[in-house]
């Protein structure tokens, strides 16, 4: 049975240090020992969060801004290290946290595809073979030799997305990327995710598009102030969340 889980999050706790005045020099460090005022506050972002996602499942994460959703994704994506607890992942994880990491306006679209592809984990040769199909998907075939600074933001997003989906991950972490681009691009990227789903990929995504999530997610996880407020059937959780949000707004 254990094999069917593709992500297991166990008792994950994460605390960030918030500096009142930034103390990152040796001088200030020494001064802070002499002056015993507390300059650092701890902000507990996630507390004892546990859940698991089965292989091929689509999990939606909802919650207010600042509730810890992105931090949770970053911990699953190994970018942050949890203070306590552990994350077990079965298979290759690709975070779609912010598309176009490492893009450089001074370089051509082609060069940027190569750089971004290599950052995502391809070898140079592998990504070069994919340039054509990336350009086609992003609808920028004619502009491969154009410098990226001359691209519109839509073209930029399409190019980044087209490159990122070339990675063939087992687990996708998606942070609100569906909300960039125009309607036709949104539809295209939406279809891409559905396609990933059909192929049995595990997808965890953060979004505020509740109605869309109700339709496509298998389960919803509601994070509030660093703890799991509710978890389970999409309709049930989303209704709870909506109700909670409306009563809070009234206060």
């Amino acid at each position, binding site marked *: 049975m254990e094999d069917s889980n593709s992500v297991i999050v166990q008792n994950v706790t994460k605390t*960030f*240090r918030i500096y009142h005045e930034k103390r*990152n*020099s*040796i*001088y200030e*460090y020494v001064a802070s020992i002499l002056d015993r005022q507390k300059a650092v506050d701890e902000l507990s972002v996630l507390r004892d969060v546990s859940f698991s996602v089965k292989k091929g499942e689509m999990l939606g994460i909802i919650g207010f801004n600042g509730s810890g959703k992105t931090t949770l994704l970053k911990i699953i*994506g*190994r*970018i*942050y*290290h949890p203070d306590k607890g552990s994350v077990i992942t079965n298979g290759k*994880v690709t*975070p779609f*946290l*912010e598309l176009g*990491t*490492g893009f450089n306006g001074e370089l051509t679209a082609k060069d940027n595809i*190569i*750089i971004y592809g*290599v*950052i*995502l*984990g*391809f*070898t*140079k040769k592998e990504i070069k073979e994919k340039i054509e199909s990336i350009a086609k998907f992003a609808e920028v075939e004619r502009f491969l030799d154009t410098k990226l600074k001359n691209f519109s933001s839509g073209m930029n997003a399409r190019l980044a997305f087209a490159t990122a989906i070339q990675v063939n991950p087992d687990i996708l972490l998606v942070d609100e990327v569906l909300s960039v681009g125009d309607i036709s691009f949104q539809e295209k990227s939406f279809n891409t995710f559905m396609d990933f789903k059909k192929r049995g990929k595990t997808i965890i995504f953060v979004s505020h598009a509740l109605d869309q999530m109700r339709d496509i997610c298998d389960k919803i996880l509601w994070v509030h102030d660093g703890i799991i407020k509710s978890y389970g059937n999409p309709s049930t959780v989303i209704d709870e969340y909506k109700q909670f949000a409306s009563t809070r707004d009234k206060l």
Partner: protein
Amino acid sequence: MSDSLFREIWERRSLIMLFAFNDVKLRYRNSTLGFLWSFLEPLLMLTVLYLVFTNIIKSVVPNYPLYLLLSLIVWYMFQRATTMGQTSLLDRAGIIQKIYFRREVVVVSSCLTAFIMMGFEFGAFAIFVVAFKFVPPLTILLLPLLLIDLFIMSLGVSLFLSAMTVYFRDLKFIWQIILQALFFVSPIIYQLNMFPDKIRTLLQLNPLVSLLDITHGMALYNTLPTLKESMYLGISTCIVFIFGYVIFKLKSKNLIEEL
């Protein structure tokens, strides 16, 4: 554990090469002299030092211009690698906050940038060797071993500095001062045997000093280091590297959120 470290870094070799070569390009692109700059930088330094010190030291050190150039090439490698390595995590913050790969990758690539630049400078060295009609001894063939040692040593220092600098930003300035001091206590301008034995032994405790000393001997004077000297260099390099790596490991856990 360490097996997966090397595997994960090896799997990212494409990324390491990409970062390293892009940095080399960036360093030369903005100057009209471009690639030539890599030759000019050490040449200018060489000229200045040569003019200043020639009368004092020339008579004592055989092939003094070559001696000086070789010292400078090795020194520049160490200086650039540690300076770029020190800020590598901060410089690539935008990427490592978004995508996971071994953080060591960015430090390794910075050191590699310096290593590639050193390669160009050895081109200049070869030209000088020909111009001075100098016939290098056979022992020069062992030089690559020393350069690998130099790379590992620089990487160890860079790993330590890069992790610590995320927490203490002023280490950047402190390291520049330490580098200046290191320059003068290393046999770059002078030769070690100009000092009395006691001071010499003391200076030689610094692995960089013993590396420079052995390099000169092998590349210019047909002398191989004694077994004791080679062992000391090898072991001290390992210690520097392991120390740097352990500190990096300890500090790197929560490093991303401190960037």
